[in-house]
């Protein structure tokens, strides 16, 4: 390689230049979005690459008239419910599969396993009908209930539970520690890092849902951030700065969550890649 033989300073200069060029390419759509959101309407199309005007009014407008505030609240409620209930149901079912003895265990386990093969897009045609017949269109129940249990979370936690030697459970039982105590004292502390990764994963997945909320939401009051942006884009295409302000407001909370939970992110994303 030519670069290997080049002098050291020159080599790192070449690498920095490449890193910078690539970074600029990646940030280009973000840059155009940010400067558009900070321009008044009459200046947006003048010179789309230069920040030749500045105002915060558009962001304020997107929050109030564009209703991003409302959408953010809806999404937060949905994501928090889905994530927290999902953690509870995953812990419970993973615990049952790992430490309880009961008939038909293999069959029930097989049912859980089989749901992993079914993509969301396949079930939503029927789920929309189910939610409709339950009277849950335009409701938080409709947005959350189908997602409050996952086989993915169950398996992820079960993998960790299975590392606890059966003898330990037997010994704890001898000492009079029931299932509840064992779960609190031994099992849950052991899976805490995995819970963090799973929680972040569920939160992101729920926050980013697009197809499902767009299928069961017809009232603007129930729009999540994602479907709300869709609403904004279709009704205000003549105000691109307003739409871009909306996308910024929609992206910032997730950006903050990701910065805070960086460690869990890599763990969560690689959970599927590294087995065992």
């Amino acid at each position, binding site marked *: 390689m030519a*670069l290997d033989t080049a002098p050291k300073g020159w080599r790192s200069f070449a690498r920095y230049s490449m890193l910078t060029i690539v970074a600029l390419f990646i940030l280009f759509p973000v840059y155009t979005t940010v400067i558009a959101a900070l321009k008044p309407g009459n200046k947006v199309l003048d010179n*789309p690459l230069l920040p030749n005007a500045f105002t915060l009014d558009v962001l304020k407008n997107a929050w109030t008239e564009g209703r991003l505030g409302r959408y953010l609240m809806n999404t937060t409620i949905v994501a928090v419910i889905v994530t927290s209930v999902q953690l509870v149901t995953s812990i419970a079912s993973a615990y049952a599969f790992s430490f309880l003895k009961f008939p038909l265990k293999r069959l029930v386990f097989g049912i859980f396993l089989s749901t992993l093969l*079914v993509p969301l897009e396949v079930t939503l045609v029927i789920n929309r009908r189910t939610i409709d017949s339950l009277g849950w269109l335009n409701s938080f129940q409709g947005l959350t209930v189908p*997602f409050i249990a996952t086989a993915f979370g169950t398996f992820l936690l079960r993998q960790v539970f299975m590392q606890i030697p059966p003898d330990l459970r037997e010994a704890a039982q001898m000492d009079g520690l029931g299932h509840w105590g064992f779960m609190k004292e031994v099992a849950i502390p052991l899976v805490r890092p995995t819970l963090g990764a799973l929680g972040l994963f569920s939160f992101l997945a729920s926050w980013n849902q697009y197809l499902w909320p767009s299928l069961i939401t017809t009232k603007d009051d129930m729009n999540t951030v994602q479907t709300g942006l869709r609403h904004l884009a279709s009704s205000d295409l003549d105000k691109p700065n307003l739409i871009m302000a909306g996308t910024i407001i929609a992206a910032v909370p997730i950006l903050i969550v990701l910065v805070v939970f960086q460690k869990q992110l890599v763990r969560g994303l690689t959970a599927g890649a590294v087995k065992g």
Partner: protein
Amino acid sequence: MAIKSRRLREIPLAFAMLGPSLLVLLTFVLYPLGKAVWLGQQTCDVQGKNCKSVGWGQYTNVVKSDQFQHALWVTVKFAMITVPIGLVLGVGLAILADKQLRGMRFFRTIFSSTIATSVAVASLMWLFLLQPSVGVLANLSWLHNIFPVIKEPGLLNDSGTALWSVGISSIWANLGFTFILVTAGLQSVPKEMHESAYVDGAGGWMRFTNVTLPLISPTLLFTTVVLTSRAFQAYGEMDLLTNGGPIPQDSTTSVTYLIYGSSSIIKNNDGLQAAVAVLLFVILLALSALQFRGFGKRVHYGS
């Protein structure tokens, strides 16, 4: 005897712990799958009510129809655009940033950043770039003088460029995800492997193909499978950027868009939607089986 009684004694507890999950999974995953298979041979009125069986031939009719075959072809093309390019770019970025240099954290953060964009956020950012009247590119006169298609009819409205445009937006949105995964894979490659290859006189490219690539192949397999399944399930990009169009070629009507899209030809036909959804399920199953068989043998899982 003691074990037997324990099996029975723990039934109520097991039921309480598994019941809620089981109920949700049965109601919202397995029942809809079975019901979709059944609904796929029915036809309903426009409200989706009064469904009557019209025979399993409906599936064959769907498979034979131009609309389904077209949507499948669009989906395959979309995957062939987004998966290889996305993977190569992700690996390239990860290698570029895989060096302990000052400020590398900064670049890694930028390269990961698109993971924070949902499909709606990413698509709207690209809509603002590509849209032919209010878009950024369309308002740079020097640019659309060279490439008139940017303004007339617009990259998203030209049947030749629409799918590529949607694809680029999707590649960009997935880049952070691929970068993070490949970076994690690279960091798990032991340094000594590189050093011994270096001592043996292997150049940069040799070390990459003979040491790095085999060791990160499980990561690459996983990333490929995830990117492919994302491409086959892509919906939001099409919904926001092109609405499945441009019409009449329906250049970006993917299989998922055909099922759920607001301007899809079958949007008021629950029976056909179910049939296409079931076919999508079969395709995705076959695809992941194929990928694991095809790559599985060549993947190096370490020792």
